């Protein structure tokens, strides 16, 4: 890392509701949080970007379907293509899938209910900027809160994801019907990660756990500065 803080941007769409939580978690990571307003195209020198959870544009039409057209997304796509580390959490994962920065889609949970719980996931790969500080096989307990977290991709894509070691997190006890128990995946060039669980919600010991920092802090080691 170079001098000064690592700057981590957090996109703010209308209806994002985990943006403040993500910004707060960035502080707890020891990095500098930067809010990225949806209508601006400037990533304000971010070294990495978090696309946070929530209900961007009310989740109307389909979760993430409208957010992908927001002005900030053009710059974000460019940033991602250039290898910048990006993580989409929950609704952010849905946005990144809609934007085709990640493969697959998130369908409604098979039990047809919103699911808010703490679940166990296993880290399947450390070959991403967001899990490089973890260990393969490491188990984390992370919060989930979603109605559409059921990861879907066609058989060919799933096989590729498995072959190319692109499943990032896997549920131990599948809470939503996801294919191959997938809780998170990464892009082909591995810098874009999407996860349904919320690492930012377990970043402060006063809330009972800071295991989420295992994921978020990973990026500090490899961030471009």
């Amino acid at each position, binding site marked *: 890392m170079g001098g000064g803080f690592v700057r981590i941007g957090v996109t703010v769409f209308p209806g994002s*509701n985990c943006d403040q939580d993500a910004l707060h978690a960035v502080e707890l990571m020891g990095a500098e949080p930067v809010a990225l307003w949806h209508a601006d195209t400037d990533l304000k020198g971010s070294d990495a970007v978090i696309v946070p959870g929530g209900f961007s544009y*009310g989740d109307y039409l389909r979760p993430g379907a409208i957010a992908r057209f927001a002005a900030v997304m053009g710059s974000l796509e460019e940033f991602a293509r250039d290898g910048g580390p990006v993580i989409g959490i929950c609704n952010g994962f849905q946005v990144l899938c809609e934007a085709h920065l990640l493969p697959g889609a998130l369908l409604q949970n098979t039990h047809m*209910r919103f699911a808010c719980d703490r679940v166990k996931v296993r880290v399947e790969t450390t070959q991403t900027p967001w899990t490089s500080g973890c260990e393969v096989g490491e188990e984390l307990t992370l919060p989930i*809160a979603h109605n559409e977290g059921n990861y879907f991709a066609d058989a060919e894509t799933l096989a590729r994801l498995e072959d190319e070691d692109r499943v990032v997190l896997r549920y131990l006890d599948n809470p939503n019907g996801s294919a191959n128990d997938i809780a998170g995946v990464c892009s082909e060039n591995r810098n874009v990660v999407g996860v349904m669980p919320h690492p930012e919600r377990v970043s402060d010991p006063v809330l009972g756990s800071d295991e989420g920092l295992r994921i978020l802090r990973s990026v500090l080691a490899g961030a471009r500065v």
Partner: protein
Amino acid sequence: MNIQETYSALGLSDSEYDRILELLGRAPNFLELSLFSVMWSEHCGYKNSRPLLRRFPNDGPRVLQGPGENAGVVEVGDGWALAFKVESHNHPSAVEPYEGAATGVGGIIRDILAMGARPVALLDSLRFGPLDEERNRYLFREVVRGIGGYGNAVGVPTVGGEVEFSPAYSGNPLVNAMCVGLIRTEDLMRSRATGEGNLVVLLGSKTGRDGIHGATFASDELSEESESRRSNVQVGDPFAEKMLIECCLKLLERDLLVSLQDLGAAGITSSASEMAASGGVGIDIEVDLVPRREGGMEPFEAMISESQERMLAVIPPEDEEEVLALAERYGIGGTVVGRVADHGDLRVIVDGEVVGSVPVEYLADAPVYERDLIRPGYLDEVQKLDLDALPEPDDLNEVLLKMLAHPNLRSRRSIYGQYDHEVGTNTVVRPGADAAVMRIKGTNRGFAMTTDGRGRHCYLDSRGGGAATVAEAYRNLSCVGAEPIALTNCLNFGSPEKPDGYYQLAECIEGISEACEAFGVPVVSGNVSLYNETARGPIYPTPVVGMVGMLEDVTRHATAAFKREGDWVLVIGTHTGSLEGSEYLEIVHKKVAGRPQNVDLDEEKKLADLVRRLVSDGIVDTAHDVSGGGIAVACAEMAITGGTGVRLFDEVENRLMYEGRRADEVLFGEPGGSYIVAVPNERFDDLREALVGFSYDEIGHTGGDRVEIGDLVNLSLGDLRGAYERDLFGIPGEVVGGTEPVG
């Protein structure tokens, strides 16, 4: 339609119409009559409850705002305050459960926002008929979906609440939503309109025909025709609400507002007239400027529409541009629709012409009805209970499993699992505990909140039940280590025009007030929902209390779950409970009868304060009050949630505690003022020292994977879980939902 038919259709009585004629000195036009009809409804005007509500104590050292504003506000230290209130959405939820519940959540959030506070927590108290009826299952499922659908999207965590099932609520569910907001004390906002010439700005969604006469609808009994009044139910848009919240908080941060008020029941009419009345001014509304969602709306419709996600703000004229630009940035509507005037009237203007004008003081001056207190005849019958005639069950294991599986006692996980209870990253103690605990970022402080209601108890003994409801909330906060500071309540009752309904209302208020005085916990806000009746009769009188408390060190809190093997388990307070009016009596013997023990308020406070100190001093991290289902259910819950078994009464000397008493009374009797705590051996001496002078017993130890209570109960955690963790939304099967009340 002649004039009598017109005002009757609007819900006004003959005498009320005469009073309007007298006040105005002339006949009102239809628009003006509509304004009176909504403002004089029970929902807005409290005409049956106002004299009774004066009984509540409202003062306390931490109170910054008592009743009369959008929400009560209390100080919690370090310059922070909590704004909070509970409100009902019973009638809308009875006919359109998803939207009824969703807009109930949206409405209470805006009440908190109107105080200038950021809404940070939601809780819901719910009542339904038994789940073996399809209609009740539908209402339950859709209400929970509606609460989740709105709360999850708007980004305010739902951290607590409670639910009960009884035939008394069949067809008339109760949906009470509470919201808590955080605010710096210096930023407190009020709804008082001031400054002649200041602008009235309507923020948020466009106005449609939804919710026309909703307030009037909510002030009548439910009937077959209610189903046809779905158009009285508003439709919610949590996305619009989220943007409205962020916009209003930004306006407040930039100090652009003179006052702020939410639009709830009776829409612009009630908001504008209340803002004007409290500021001692008048307001002109140019109703043709109100942005409409549909064409052809009459002025009176725009004035009383209850379209959701709207706020009314008063701003200085020079800030108009900045205010409207901010509304634009957040993608919500912002329109100047009126002005503050010096004439004291609510004037409705169309194309520059006054089409209706009523002094706001008349609108605020709903008639008041005081009635005689007549003790209901049913009480003598239901309070009779001959315990000797009650057969003692042979298999107490089976009884405990049946109790734990009953919808009134079963785990609420299948409900709160549908609510985002962690968004905002402040939730320290999550749902499923005696009370929710949240931290205040940037401080060591926290606050706790709970909602409680005891309908069956209030039905059997209204005054005792009212006091017990407050005591239950006080206990729940104490268990997590919070110092209770104030409460809000929602008074859900049947028709006050019937002697039984009025008696229950008055007596519950008396009981609540006595408990508030004894505990030093003032009532700072509230809401009244009367006319909760169907063809099957009235609901149980169900005052719901939402109480908040504070923790100086949020890390010093307790939960009910057993945390270690080998902990000492103690009961603090009395361990002799009563079966009168108990869950056991209803679930196992199908009886709603008896007279539950009266709460000894002074003793109750001493014990609860003791338990709170044990927690805040760091001696105890495991505490639970003994409530519905008695000591057996309390211990089973602690074992199941902690994943650690427990052995109670396993020694000869403490078996004496129950010998000679009915086993079912020992296990399932409800003592009130009783707590189970668990401590590891190294803190046992500290605990005993702290307990000197108090009544307590050492009753056993944690450990293993079974719950064993003397020679009465011996069950594996697996079996207990199988009963307790059943999905409340599954098909009920053998589980019976409740019993018809007697009388």
